[in-house]
């Protein structure tokens, strides 16, 4: 016979507004095994916690039910209260969710109160079956893995490594750096993007605790917080980096020179053996196997002949390694939406002078294909009239994505500024839906662009056609005046939406975490746990979590690094005690649980058991509590019913079902 205390929270009026909390407490007093029931304005506050602690002692309670917000919100907090301030085992606690799943979804007490009573009755029934659970210590591997080597990954890596922990960056391209080195200037300060990002790249390369794996992808992740076994495939580079000095001789002699450069957004060409840009890290070239004549046709071999150190190795193969890490940071970044596929009305990619914002960045950049001169890709002349179209793909649920990409308003203003700065007398028209410039010095920057003469027109471009004289006729509407607007432009820049990178879904499955509906990784809590995921030891940095600009990305990367450092500083962490447990006396050793376990946490072992005063040696299942994640799949598969899940035991759930069904 247990002595259960039921604590009903008002949560101000959040709960008390639609649930008669006193009536719930009254009803709880009538429930079996309930020794005390009471209410408090805010159960999670210091006073609320003290109230729980005092009542537990005063009434000698041995189980606690808290009827409050979702257990996903404060279950941990209440467990901590029990563990630190009472003699009760923290797992003798149940939370009845009467806020998110009751008071917030119903409008009056007539409906809310009986439902809350039902939910409390279920929790009381389950609490009666709760048992004491004990955690044990799991060692923490003091190394971190960063997936993605953009500015988010670089910042997180540097912060973690500077704290003294080894870091590995896995990058799938040939260099780290991501999109930032491609940009020309960054808003709102207009400092040179490459000048602030490439030093960080070389800092990573030079850091004794940072290992960089380029052309690499994570294939498999096993294990759990503190101990992830990660399998990484490092693709063949066909160059021995130990021998290569990065002299660049191979690049100058490579006969395959017509490959579109990814770094310059297809506006210039590169060779088959290449370094994407001079400051690339690692500062050594790679052979592009799809275009190399030696690797595709078996003849050429020029680079091998000219290489002074004999570093070229056409027989190079992928290297697959498995290593253990304590924490993983996902910094996989974004891609730009493929507007050519979606926006036929903007030419669908048929007009060379309709370019994306990232292409404009390369055009205006001194190291870009035009050495910083804004020239039309079609004929190399300087455009006199430029049209910028914002929200291409963003905020367009029909064709693109429903969300706002956050950075485009600002870099759109920056593009307008740069155009007017570099083309004297140039006219710039910006078609916009709304101008959103929250951020330090952001609105000032936008206002400045306006004062410089950029013409902002509220409305979308409905069609772009190319006239025989090469002008791009942009037809749109000024929704503020209601007039149809037609602009004869020399060049059009589309500020396109940020979308999750290809492979994000596969990676989410590999690392075992969730994606939101738009395909970005989901944080554990949008406000209070913004860089953590629901999977322990897995953190988010940058645009992997959602569109954001560079300052926010860097800030979030630092926050993720702080979380990782916090974890790696610990000698050990507490295990999750809610794991499967096998009753040896019932286990028949059939092994159904072994086959079903996704973590290989169950094994069959020979055990000597005492059964009816006799010693018997039998094969029984044994759960490795470190590996078990507590999903409970094995418990259902168990034929003799020997396997049960601690914290969610069969009896508890059955009683919970019964409490609701018979009430």
């Amino acid at each position, binding site marked *: 016979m247990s002595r259960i205390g039921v604590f009903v929270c008002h949560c101000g009026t959040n709960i008390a507004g639609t649930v008669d909390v006193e009536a719930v407490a009254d009803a709880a007093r009538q429930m079996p095994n309930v020794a005390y029931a009471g209410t408090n304005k805010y159960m999670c506050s210091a006073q609320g916690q003290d109230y729980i602690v005092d009542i537990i002692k005063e009434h000698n309670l041995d189980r606690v039910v808290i009827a409050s917000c979702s257990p996903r919100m404060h279950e941990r907090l209440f467990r901590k209260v029990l563990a630190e301030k009472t003699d009760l085992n923290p797992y003798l606690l149940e939370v009845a969710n009467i806020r998110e799943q009751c008071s917030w979804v*119903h409008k009056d007490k007539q409906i809310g109160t009986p439902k809350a*009573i039902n939910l409390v009755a279920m929790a009381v029934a389950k609490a009666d079956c709760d048992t004491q659970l004990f955690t044990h210590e799991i060692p923490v591997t003091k190394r971190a893995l960063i997936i993605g080597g953009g500015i988010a990954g670089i910042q997180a890596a540097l912060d973690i490594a500077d704290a003294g922990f080894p870091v590995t960056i896995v990058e799938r391209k040939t260099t780290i750096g991501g999109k930032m080195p491609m940009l020309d200037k960054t808003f709102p300060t207009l400092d040179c993007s490459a000048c602030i990002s490439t030093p960080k790249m070389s800092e990573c390369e030079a850091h004794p605790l940072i290992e960089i794996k380029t052309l690499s992808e994570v294939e498999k992740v096993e294990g759990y917080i503190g101990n992830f076994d990660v399998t990484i495939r490092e693709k063949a580079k066909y160059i021995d980096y130990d021998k290569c000095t990065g002299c660049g001789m191979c690049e100058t002699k490579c006969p395959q020179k017509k490959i579109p450069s990814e770094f310059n957004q297809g506006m210039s060409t590169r060779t088959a053996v290449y370094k994407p840009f001079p400051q690339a890290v690692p500062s050594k070239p790679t052979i592009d196997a799809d275009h190399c004549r030696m690797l595709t046709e078996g003849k050429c071999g020029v680079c091998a002949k000219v290489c002074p150190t004999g570093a070229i190795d056409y027989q190079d193969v992928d290297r697959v390694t498995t290593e253990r890490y304590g924490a993983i940071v996902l910094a996989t970044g974004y891609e730009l939406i493929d507007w050519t596929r979606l926006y036929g009305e903007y030419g669908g990619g048929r007009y060379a002078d309709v370019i994306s914002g990232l292409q404009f960045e390369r055009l205006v950049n001194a190291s870009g294909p035009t050495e910083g001169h804004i020239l039309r890709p079609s004929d190399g002349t300087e455009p006199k009239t430029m049209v910028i179209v914002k929200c291409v793909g963003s905020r367009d649920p029909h064709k693109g994505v429903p969300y706002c990409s956050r950075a485009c308003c600002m870099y759109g203003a920056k593009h307008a500024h740069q155009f007017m700065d570099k083309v004297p007398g140039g006219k710039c028209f910006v078609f916009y839906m709304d101008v959103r410039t929250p951020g330090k010095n952001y609105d000032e920057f936008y206002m400045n662009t306006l004062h410089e003469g950029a013409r902002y027109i509220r409305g979308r471009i409905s069609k772009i056609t190319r006239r025989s004289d090469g002008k791009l006729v942009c037809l749109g509407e000024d929704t503020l005046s209601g007039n149809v607007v037609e602009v004869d432009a020399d060049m059009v820049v589309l500020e396109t939406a940020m979308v999750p990178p290809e492979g994000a879904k596969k990676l989410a*499955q590999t690392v075992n975490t*969730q994606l939101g509906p738009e395909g970005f990784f989901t944080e554990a809590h949008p406000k209070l746990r913004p860089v953590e995921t629901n999977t322990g030891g897995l953190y988010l940095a940058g645009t992997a979590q959602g569109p954001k600009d560079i300052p926010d990305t860097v800030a979030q990367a630092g926050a993720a690094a702080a979380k990782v450092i916090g974890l790696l500083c610990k000698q050990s962490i507490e295990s999750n005690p809610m794991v499967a447990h096998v009753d040896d006396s019932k286990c028949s050793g059939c092994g159904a649980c072994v086959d079903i376990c*996704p973590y290989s946490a169950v094994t069959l072992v020979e055990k000597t058991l005492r059964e009816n005063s006799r010693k018997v040696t039998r094969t029984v299942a044994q759960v490795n509590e470190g590996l078990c994640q507590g999903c409970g799949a094995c418990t*259902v598969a168990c034929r003799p019913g020997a396997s049960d899940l601690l914290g969610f035991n069969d009896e508890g759930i059955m009683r919970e079902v019964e409490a609701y069904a018979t009430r």
Partner: protein
Amino acid sequence: MPRDNEQTGEFTPKILAFCCNWCTYAGADLAGLNRMNYPADVKVLRVPCSGRVNPQYVLKALQSGCDGVLVCGCHPGDCHYSTGNYYAKRRMMIFKRMVEFAGLSPERFQIRWISGSEAGKFRDTVVEVSEQIRALGPMENDAPSRAAIDAVAGTVASPEADEELFAAAKEAI
């Protein structure tokens, strides 16, 4: 709790939803956060994973007074425990056929996949299932099948039956 609304005499169904902690339970929380409104007929029972739902629980619910049962988990491929929802799907599909064979209306036992971000889908599901069960009326309407359900329950081991068998076996040894 009264089965019929005292004022209107309207039937209020009892529906139990087993929701996995990582997806559907989070989706239900999000529905609350967004202040979505839905009928109170459905109560959520939290389980770590849809793969934790033993068909016994569903039987217990249907036997002891629920008018409908929902099992909800992450979308295929998105399970927090990688494969739990696949097991749940296979188990529940077979079990559903058994329940239907016993003569119960198929709407009384349903399986749905709702992610942590699909608050709207959670609300829509609750509304839809609640309407379906209201249309079917109380479990007693499927009365002839009640005996069949008990028979089905008899074929699935329950912890109590296990204990009894175990005790008997112990005795025999």
